[in-house]
């Protein structure tokens, strides 16, 4: 039997008239990377909020490590960490102060050491003493993710971790996610980008009109579509490849 980190059954949620989730089911295996794919307004954030005990579902059940999110929220919060869609950082504090604050709230014995390690790991050492309000979007996102890693939670939720980042910063975030997974952390991420899910996820679920319309490994999902026709076309580099090539050259100089 495989170990299940997240189990969701028949989840439904409405906001007044709007029936956002109409019966969502899925499972996430421990230690895997699971991507929930969906367009704007599909209900990805709603699923994340229910799983992180910020919102209550109307119908259905969700368990995290065997703990029900409604009846055992404290136990759920012990094992999770959330990086919400919009950076949840304190703008008035410095980067270091933000990290120390979370380390203290996680009751770690040496918050300063934890903060220093993360500042190094996320390339924020030089900006450590600056107020977060002066950070770029990418730096803010890195700090946000770093704050979520404090205390080594078993399960991390990342709600659209790369939306709004440039390709370089995006790849950095991908690297972090892969490292987390290699360390045994279960990662639940949402995204609007197919290629992100392709890059990272062991399993991909597509949320559409309130239901999971497809769920499987990348291979399984590809098989759902008609086989790709083989055509001979000159391959144009993607914008991303061009951008990275130029950036790469700059840094070599």
């Amino acid at each position, binding site marked *: 039997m495989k170990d299940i980190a997240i189990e969701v059954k028949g989840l439904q949620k409405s906001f007044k008239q709007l029936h956002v989730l109409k019966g969502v089911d899925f499972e996430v295996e421990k230690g895997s990377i699971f991507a929930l794919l969906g367009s704007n307004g599909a209900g990805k954030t709603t699923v994340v*909020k229910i799983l*992180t*005990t*910020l*919102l*209550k579902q109307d119908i259905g059940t969700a368990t995290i490590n065997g703990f029900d999110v409604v009846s055992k929220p*404290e*136990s759920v*919060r*012990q094992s*999770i*960490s*959330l990086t*919400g869609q*919009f*950076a*949840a*950082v*304190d*703008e*008035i*504090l410095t980067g270091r*102060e933000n990290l120390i*604050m*979370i380390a*203290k*709230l*996680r*009751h770690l014995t040496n918050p300063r050491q934890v903060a220093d390690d993360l500042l190094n790991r996320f390339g924020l050492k030089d900006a450590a003493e600056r*107020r977060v309000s002066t950070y770029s979007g990418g730096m803010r996102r890195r700090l946000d993710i770093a*704050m979520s890693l404090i205390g080594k939670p078993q399960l991390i939720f990342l709600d659209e971790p790369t939306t709004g980042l440039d390709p370089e910063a995006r790849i950095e975030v991908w690297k972090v996610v892969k490292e987390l997974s290699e360390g045994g952390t279960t990662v639940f991420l949402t995204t609007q980008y197919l290629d992100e899910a392709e890059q990272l996820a062991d399993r991909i679920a597509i949320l559409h009109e309130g239901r999971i319309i497809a769920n499987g490994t990348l291979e399984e999902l590809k098989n759902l579509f008609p086989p790709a026709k083989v055509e001979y076309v000159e391959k144009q580099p993607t914008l991303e490849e061009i951008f990275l090539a130029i950036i790469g050259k700059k840094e070599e100089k």
Partner: protein
Amino acid sequence: MDSIKKHFFSDMSVMLGRSMRHIFRSMDTIITVTIMPIAFMLLFVYVFGGAIQTGTDNYVNYLLPGILLIAIASGIAYTAYRLFMDMQSGIFERFHSMPIARSAALWGHVLTSLVSNAISVVVIILVALIMGFRSSAGVLPWLAVAGILALFTLALTWIAAIAGLSAKSVDGAGAFSYPIIFLPFISSAFVPTETMPTVVRAFAENQPVTSIVEAIRALLSGQPVGNDIWVALAWCIGIILVAYIFAMRVYKRKAA
């Protein structure tokens, strides 16, 4: 569960440290909160003061309690503002998804409100001393004054919490404080109520500010406090209980 309760006070002090940093990094809050009451004090003492008949020879002594209440009433507008900004920014979501007591975040703001208002009260008293304020009160009456002011701050802070938690805009979060700032003007804070028309006088004598002002004034001047202190305490504690229940209800609804 137990560990969450065990850490409640340390979590709350982390929250307090956080919002105190916010206050000290935006000095304009402290300045706004102390300058306006000080300006009122200057205006009333040096402009209107000569014409006002209060039956005392030291008008600064007469005026100070009301000025302190105005300062606290304008100070708590910032409590509502900070709470509103936290609700908006998503940092509360982070706190609420962590294994810490949910109310620690809210209590952090309440404590911050007490500390920051205490600072502005002290600053204003120092300015009043320069302007000629003198008190013969000993340690105990001063402690009683501090206690009443703390309860008044707490009462207004919980009202501010309701506003900050349920507001839809920044302006909405602070708007509730204007009528409260205005209350001392229709009380015995600046002039005795005897000269007011009957209806205004009835209101002035039966609203909370008058009993609080009278109680503080009596304590500071070494007069017998009489009933005023009990009426003042009843008002403060009554408001605290009601506002606390409503604020907690809003908080639970907003934070699932």
